[in-house]
């Protein structure tokens, strides 16, 4: 994707976010209702950004998805996460040769591939896979009509990506109160010996597992873009506030301590942005991220909660209030630490990949 196209796309996202500030505000007011989620879905669909990845032939458009996610994250990290998740789900459905439905699809993006075997119990009985247990914290589950669930017990040959139609049960469940990304509702999926037959199987086998493993790896770029958007937003909010807040007889941006805090935040957010853009430009279809690149992205993930904490600190008492944007950056930053899995699980995985 050329730079000009990305710039045009980026500007259209910024324009949309500026025009829809009220909608973004209402999304962040927990919990997201079915009606509102439908509205958001339709608006994003109109922008033509819900199926950017296409299929395995074209999914180097990850670069574009990351750019779009970044611009959304500057305004609403919740929408950015929903958008990336929907694109990943649409890609998987396209891969299976099926038509992508025009509604939200749930996908457990808070779990690393290495964590999948431990979420629910997966057993094989005759030609069916039997699932038991509770898969917790699945984004969009309360408002989705389908759930794509990777069923994996450690044997890649027996891997199944199930496509489960959701009834109204998920909607009736007690809403989960998360720390951040409150616009993107979470749900727990409970399975009591659910049988996944051929009709419910979207993809299966070792090749499917490898493909999704690669998808999860490349999606780290999008998640880093979202984190980077939060970092930029936190920094920009701090800059704007520092230019107008008067304290100690002068505007606070004239205090050297504030300048140092801003300079530190600027360096960190610039590093994060440069990192995902650099890694994103190296992505190739069907090839997982280099471990070095993944390590770079995860380093930014470690720093983000501290950067946004400084952002609140610079605001002082005002930064702690929900009327101002900094507290949301602080909460969202921590929530985003776990996108695509537990950082320690990823760490172990990275090490094991290199160490053999």
């Amino acid at each position: 994707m050329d730079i000009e196209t990305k710039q045009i796309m980026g500007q259209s996202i910024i324009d949309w976010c500026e025009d829809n500030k009220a909608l973004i505000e209402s999304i962040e007011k927990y919990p997201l209702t079915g009606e509102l989620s439908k509205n958001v879905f339709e608006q994003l669909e109109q922008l033509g950004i819900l199926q950017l990845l296409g299929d395995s032939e074209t999914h180097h458009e990850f670069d574009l998805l990351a750019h779009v996610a970044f611009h959304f994250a500057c305004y609403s990290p919740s929408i950015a996460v929903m958008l990336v998740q929907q694109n990943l789900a649409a890609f998987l459905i396209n891969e299976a040769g099926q038509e992508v439905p025009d509604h939200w699809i749930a996908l457990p993006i808070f779990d690393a591939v290495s964590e999948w075997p431990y979420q629910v119990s997966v057993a094989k009985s005759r030609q069916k896979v039997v699932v038991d247990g509770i898969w917790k914290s699945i984004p969009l589950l309360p408002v989705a009509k389908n759930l794509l669930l990777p069923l994996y017990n450690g044997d890649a040959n027996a891997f199944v990506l199930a496509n489960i139609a959701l009834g109204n049960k998920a909607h009736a469940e007690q809403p989960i109160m998360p720390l951040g990304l409150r616009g993107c509702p979470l749900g727990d999926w409970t399975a009591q010996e659910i049988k996944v037959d051929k009709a419910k199987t979207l993809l299966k086998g070792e090749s499917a597992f490898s493909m999704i493993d690669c998808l999860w790896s490349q999606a780290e770029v999008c998640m880093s873009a979202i984190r980077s958007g939060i970092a930029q937003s936190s920094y920009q909010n701090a800059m704007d506030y520092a230019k107008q807040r008067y304290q100690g007889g002068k505007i606070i941006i004239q205090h050297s301590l504030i300048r140092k805090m801003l300079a530190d935040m600027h360096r960190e957010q610039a590093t994060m942005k440069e990192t995902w853009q650099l890694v994103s430009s190296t992505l190739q279809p069907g090839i997982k991220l280099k471990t070095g690149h993944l390590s770079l992205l995860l380093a930014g993930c470690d720093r983000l909660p501290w950067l946004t904490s400084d952002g609140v600190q610079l605001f002082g008492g005002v930064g702690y209030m929900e009327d101002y944007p900094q507290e949301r950056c602080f909460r969202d930053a921590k929530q985003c630490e776990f996108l695509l899995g537990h950082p320690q699980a990823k760490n172990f995985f990275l090490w094991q990949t290199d160490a053999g």
Partner: protein
Amino acid sequence: MEACLINECPPFANRDSSITEWSFLERYPELSFYFKKDPAVGARIEAHYRRVQAYVQRYIAPVALEIDLKMMRDPNYVPMDLLEAACDYKLFSMMFPSVFGGSGEHIVAAFITYELIASHCVGLSNLIGVNGLAIGCILSTFDPRSLSIMINLITENEKKRIPTLLSTCVTEPGAGSDAEDADEFEKAVLKTTATRVKGGYELNGTKIFISNGSLAQLHVVIAYDAAGKHRPEDLLVFLVPNTTPGVSTPRNEKKMGQRVCPATEVVFENAFVPDAYVCRQGAGKGEYAYTGIANVLGLTRAGVGAFATGVAENAYRTALKFVHRHDFLGQPMEQQQWVRVELANLARRAQVSRSTYLNALLTVASMGVVEPMSGVPEKTILKELSKHPLFVKARDAFLHMEPADKMFKWKASQQTTYERDTATAYGDVAKVGCTELAMENCQKAISLMGKLGLRHEYGAEKLLRDVKLLQIYEGTNQVNMLDYIKRRMTRQFVTSA
């Protein structure tokens, strides 16, 4: 993946077992050194610890998370049952000497109370602990009349099981952290003014982010004398009952955490304060309201250290409970060495934090704002006498008289600048050190717990929202550090002749 995770350690206990509470000496072993020298004081503090622990276990631990959710739905909700129960345990009057009708607990006991409550809900600890700031402000003016008004209100209400909450109104839209720093204070834009009228003053202005503002029966208000030149020495301290015409609390802020302790806008419109409710100031030459407030910061900042220690401890226990019952990549978490080291670090930070605030507290107790009051004897006979109406009447009459005022101010004047500086500097260190450790613990606890740590019902996410405020109030950590280095450096440079 599984191959890299080895179960090296035996389990702590079976998964159904619960975590017990610490005994006094398990939590504060360092204090035994002092209490061996004075066993009576030690026994009193230990007994107080047990009482507070019982209160916390019975009233706070079971509902802390539920209250947080209730506050999210209804920001005006007040957990009155908890506050009424706190009266039964004399948590509002614990710091007052028996002769004033309080329970005369040692200052260490008061701070232990804050830590214990904070180890289950720091918002509730703040709700009760904010009183300490208001009392400290009045204490720092060394005005016995104001002190007796405040103490009588609290102790009399407590007997009737009516919780008395106080607020301290300093912050304004144009005066935040600068109003908490002696060097910056003159530049802070404090617009609330007090105009002299017959029989008292009229207050006008708006205070913001006032903890307990909407719940307080009595506000301690800092305002400039309109007839003055806007200098620190023109500041006045007032006691303003919430029922005073012209005082209103139009809104509570929507806070990220510590929701149970409201942060309120308090507005004064021609609010009349009679002379009897104006603090008499001037403990010796060069003393004025601000000096008093600056001196109280050593005490209150050590108090924030106690809050932070409670949070750090809670983060450790929340993670411990989680780790005890959950697996990571298919293996029991508690049996993995790396997890145990993470847990150890959480416990270590809580322990370092506790030592830091106790260190500051003992310094404040020996040379800070509370030291002049610590000479009041705790005798049974005084305690009994204070129950007698005639004694109370005579005591209050004396406290309103000039000789009492002179006595208090003489006592205050015995304290050196070095002592006050040191106490405040230690308070600064406790505030910054403990809140940073607590913040790190909350971040690390969630990182250990993973995606479930982000959910309200597991407790850790509330801790992270709550802990951030500790780095902001009582002066941001940055302001505290500027104050600390100033107090250190002024003594480390020698001007050449």
